[in-house]
């Protein structure tokens, strides 16, 4: 299923690639890579995630040249970036909103995997690597949010690091070790800056493994069936490079809208108040992309079990390839699973809404119901539906489905 390997005409390139076949590798990855011919627009979000990671790294490296990771100067240095650094406001708004875009495209990418069964054999390791990337992203995003050292930065750092105090016996010591002090302070800010700079490069490393693991079995596709022959696949370039660039241009409009016209809409006004350890904000809320997990944390009345539930909500996804008992990948041929998939999407949105609101009144009950449903979905519904459901007949091949039935979307 190869579309002709890399055969350069230039003698220098030939000589170089003979000694270090990095150009062959690149060619195999983004040019000749045999790709199913029927990928829809939901498949754009993987490359978009890679692009937003790059945006974050480039803007972040430049911001770090002007930022001061010291607790009495951090807030001022961010204002210095906003006011005095040439296009500093642009870099900072790109970085702050870029984080939201990165999470948005990654969440869509994950839900696409859930819908089309991309986590199933032979792609379990690929799925795991994706989850590792998500965990690293969440850690980097949290530490990045602390750096401006505003009120929300400080109190988010306090709340999140305090979660570790739930660990029996050694909890308090672990928290002091994380802080590097007896409270969140300069030592904490310094190490968060160091780690916030480090983690994205670890993400790059895992992304490379993720792409490597993708290219062994090849991409899944909306039909969820394996490619049977060359007629089912097309080279990545020009077909998917063109499609990805079109998708990139569309999402850039959304990104630009936030940067230029609503740059603070996803942030919290309290983070424009300098950190004050003596004044607790009335509502401490994380960034939107953590809200569903925050809701799960608060749904459980016990601190330790709340923390366990929150971490389990992601860790459990590592077992998903085995929890799902259905052999059919794509939800298109799984009439019952398809409906539960959309219920899970609604459940995630409800959890996010609950996470954004103070835990009082009906929000407590809704939060608990939605949390219960989240775990129910993966631990009970997915395994049982896989057994009970009678899947629709699968098409003969990708090519026959695409070329025979134009209604395919």
């Amino acid at each position: 299923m190869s579309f002709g390997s890399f055969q350069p005409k230039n003698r220098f390139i030939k000589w170089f690639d003979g000694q270090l076949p990095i150009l062959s590798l690149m060619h195999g990855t983004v040019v000749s890579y045999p790709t199913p011919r029927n990928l829809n627009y939901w498949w754009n979000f993987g490359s978009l995630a890679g692009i937003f990671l790059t945006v974050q790294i480039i803007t972040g490296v430049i911001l770090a040249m002007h930022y001061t990771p010291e607790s009495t100067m951090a807030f001022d240095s961010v204002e210095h970036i906003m006011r005095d650094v040439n296009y500093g406001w642009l870099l900072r708004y790109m970085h702050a909103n870029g984080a939201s875009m990165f999470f948005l495209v990654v969440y869509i990418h994950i839900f696409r995997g859930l819908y089309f069964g991309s986590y199933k054999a032979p792609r379990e390791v690929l799925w795991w690597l994706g989850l590792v990337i998500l965990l690293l992203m969440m850690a980097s995003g949290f530490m990045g949010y602390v750096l401006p050292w505003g009120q929300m930065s400080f109190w988010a750092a306090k709340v999140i690091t305090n979660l570790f105090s739930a660990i029996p016996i050694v909890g308090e010591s672990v928290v002091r070790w994380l802080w590097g002090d007896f409270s969140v302070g300069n030592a904490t800010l310094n190490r968060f800056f160091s780690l916030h700079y480090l983690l994205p490069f670890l993400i790059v490393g895992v992304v490379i493994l993720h792409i490597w693991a993708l290219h062994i079995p090849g991409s899944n596709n909306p039909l969820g069936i394996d490619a049977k022959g060359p007629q089912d696949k097309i080279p990545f370039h020009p077909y998917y490079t063109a499609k990805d660039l079109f998708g990139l241009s569309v999402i850039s409009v959304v990104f630009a809208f936030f940067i230029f016209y609503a740059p603070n809409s996803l942030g919290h006004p309290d983070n424009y108040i300098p950190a004050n350890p003596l004044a607790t904000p009335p509502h401490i809320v994380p960034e939107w992309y953590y809200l569903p997990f925050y809701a799960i944390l608060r749904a459980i009345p016990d601190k330790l079990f709340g923390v366990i539930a929150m971490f389990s909500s992601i860790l459990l996804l590592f077992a998903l390839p085995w929890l799902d008992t259905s052999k059919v990948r794509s939800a298109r041929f799984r009439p019952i699973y398809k409906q539960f998939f959309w219920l899970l999407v609604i459940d995630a949105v409800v959890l996010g809404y609950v996470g954004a609101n103070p835990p009082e009144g009906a929000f407590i009950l809704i939060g608990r119901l939605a949390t219960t449903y989240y775990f129910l979905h993966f631990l009970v519904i997915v395994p049982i539906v896989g057994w009970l459901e009678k899947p629709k007949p699968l098409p003969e091949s990708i090519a026959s489905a695409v070329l025979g039935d134009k209604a395919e979307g």
Partner: protein
Amino acid sequence: MTHKNPCIALLIAVALVAVGMVPALAEEAHPEKQDWSHQGPTGTFDRGALQRGFQVYREVCSACHDLKYITFRNLGDLGYSKAEIAALAAEYEVADGPNDDGDMFTRPGIPSDHIPSPFANDNAARASNGGALPPDLSLIVKAREGGEDYIYALLTGYRDAPDDFTLGEGLNYNPYFTNSQIAMPQPLFEEAVEFADGTGASVEQMAHDVTTFLAWAAEPTLEARKRLGFKVMIYLLILVGLMYAVNRRVWKKLKQ
């Protein structure tokens, strides 16, 4: 169709609970939306309002409130000339030093100086204000829920406390502030300033102008941002069209 039942039942259950959930009534009044020259995708700051607002800040707010991220040279954005800014800066005494003898001294301000703070430090500010710290105003518009509308509502929202309301000692009634009581006494009164451009100095006018000024102080790059945004959007929309055409053309080859 039996498989649909559990999903629908759950949906209905969630919806029922959601309907029964009425958000807790906030204790504070909700600020009304005002018109601001700088809102909207092409909004720019009204230069007249900026200059009048700066005058209100200087003659009223600056008695207690700092504006620490603003330098005199930044006031060029308000439409003042370099000479006007140099003259304005020179009216202030700025602490400097140490000199070659190791002594601190004061000198007239220059355009690169920050606007001096009304108090030497936070403790001095608290001591002069009954224990309350007047916040720095440089970012106040971005640091409050409701932004400009909230600041305007707060400045114009002072009134007599209702009979059944017990006001804390040294506090003033203002329905827009947390718990409806605020340490800051009413700052603006009719004709508190005499505007250089002859605009009538009603409380609403002064509140509107000083809020516009503070919105600028919170984000002096707002106009540059919207100007660049417009160009970027045009560029991107054309790019979307081109990429759409490229994509279609590339895939057409495959279908033939």
